[in-house]
């Protein structure tokens, strides 16, 4: 196998060995959100005509779980390796920065997809909508997980302590995901916050992913995909630049 495949294998094996924590736990969390929010709001909210609140919520929850787990896969793997010092095991071999980046990226995407699939499966009993547009589903899933995996790589390289990474997660990732319309349509927001939401790439991920299920969305899925793809390319390029320069890895 070439170095890239070995690193990918190691990254996959790493999260799979602690699957209770990396896959089961986020699925349970998503299930709790679903139980509570659908119980409280089902009777009160109809975001799109003919679509129940649970049907509206499930795609958002699946996407949110994918995003958070894709991010945390690359970021936590890197910060752990840096803090324990075993990052040298991947810095000493002849791996190129592109191989390095791709391995962490793909592992993050796989973890995101596995968790997303898990969340989708456990929500099946709640009247989960079917998927009339699987192409959009695949495109949004891959690009969104990729974007978060690349962002996680950046955060993992940048952070020198766990609390710096936690700050990144709590003050950037969490607000972006929660304020993206997972639990509501942004059309229910005041005009100012609607405008703000349009600057949040996560909004487009949730919205486009939801389109794949419901055939309805706040913005056109093609435009959404363009925004997500653009953000993915930008973050990946930045992350690659960091790796190429050896920023915080090769002093």
């Amino acid at each position: 196998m070439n170095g890239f495949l070995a690193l990918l294998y190691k990254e996959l094996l790493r999260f799979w060995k602690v699957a209770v924590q990396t896959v089961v736990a986020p699925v349970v969390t998503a299930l709790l959100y679903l139980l509570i929010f659908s119980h409280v709001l089902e009777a009160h909210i109809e975001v799109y005509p003919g679509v129940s609140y649970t049907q509206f919520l499930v795609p958002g929850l699946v996407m949110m779980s994918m995003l958070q787990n894709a991010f945390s896969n690359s970021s936590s793997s890197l910060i752990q390796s840096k803090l324990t010092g075993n990052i040298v095991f991947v810095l000493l071999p002849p791996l190129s920065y592109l191989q390095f980046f791709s391995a962490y990226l793909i592992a993050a995407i796989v973890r995101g997809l596995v968790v997303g699939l898990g969340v989708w499966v456990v929500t099946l009993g709640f009247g989960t909508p079917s998927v009339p547009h699987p192409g959009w589903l695949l495109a949004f899933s891959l690009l969104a997980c990729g974007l978060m995996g690349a962002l996680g790589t950046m955060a993992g390289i940048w952070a020198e302590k766990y609390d710096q990474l936690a700050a990144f997660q709590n003050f950037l990732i969490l607000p972006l995901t929660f304020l993206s319309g997972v639990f509501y349509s942004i059309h229910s927001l005041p005009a100012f916050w609607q405008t703000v939401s349009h600057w949040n790439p996560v909004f487009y991920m949730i919205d486009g992913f939801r389109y794949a299920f419901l055939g309805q969305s706040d913005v056109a899925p093609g435009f959404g995909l363009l925004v997500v793809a653009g953000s993915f390319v930008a973050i990946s390029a930045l992350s690659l630049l960091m790796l190429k320069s050896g920023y915080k890895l090769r002093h």
Partner: protein
Amino acid sequence: MNPGAAAISVQGLSKRFRTTQALDGVSLDIQPGEFFGLLGPNGAGKTTLISILAGLTRADAGYAAIMGHEVVRDYRQARRALGVVPQELVYDPFFNVRETLRIQSGYFGLRHNDGWIDEIMHHLDLTPHADKNTQNLSGGMKRRLLVAQALVHKPPVIVLDEPTAGVDVDLRRSLWEFISRLNREGHTVLLTTHYLEEAQALCGRIAMLKAGRIVACDTTRNLLHHANEHCAALRLASAPPAAWTERLQALPDGGWRFNFSDFSELEALLAAVRSAGGQVTEMQLIEADLEDVFTDIMKRA
């Protein structure tokens, strides 16, 4: 590999970390097959030099190459030719010993490496621990695993950064047996250590670093001669000849200490004792060891 290239070549290497000049124009060539020692007090720049060779640190100025491959521009060939045992006792707690070695082989693009993995595990007494998670290994076992990881790709150049710090006598012995064997088979070895008797016993050539500069670099034999002082402890049947009393120091046990730089001086002393009708009842030669040389060079540098 570039034929005729030095195993490790370093020219005018400098590196500054904020306020400290870790390396200050270091030049050094280590030939293939050498067992080379790099000595120096803490903070002398030994680990910085190794980190630059390994690509973990980037030099501010100068040139560094492994088997003729410059460590930044030709990093793939340079790293393929180099096996590094880091100083810190690091391990990845997600994996067991065999997984660790297989994954490490994979990073070097080696797919079917189990034969060699079994062999290094055998030589380092890791075989009984093959399926143990790395976090359940003792410190000595973790050290062995680090050595094994550095060797998975059979690198022609092996760098060991204080591999025996905090390691018991048994492991030290088996480790040096194995490394010496690899050296006899043609691997170049660069070693840093604080145990000077180890360096003296193993290394054919030694460089001493102080404050980022090389202050001595010679064969171990020459360095030991460099002390230039021999010393004999004598016990005489009667008082020493009057002409020699100035050169002799009385020892607490009633014997005499004689410092000399050439053995002819010792012969002259013995002849004088004999012609004065005296007799040497006991004599012991005390040779300088690397520790004396090291202390001396560090003091003067």
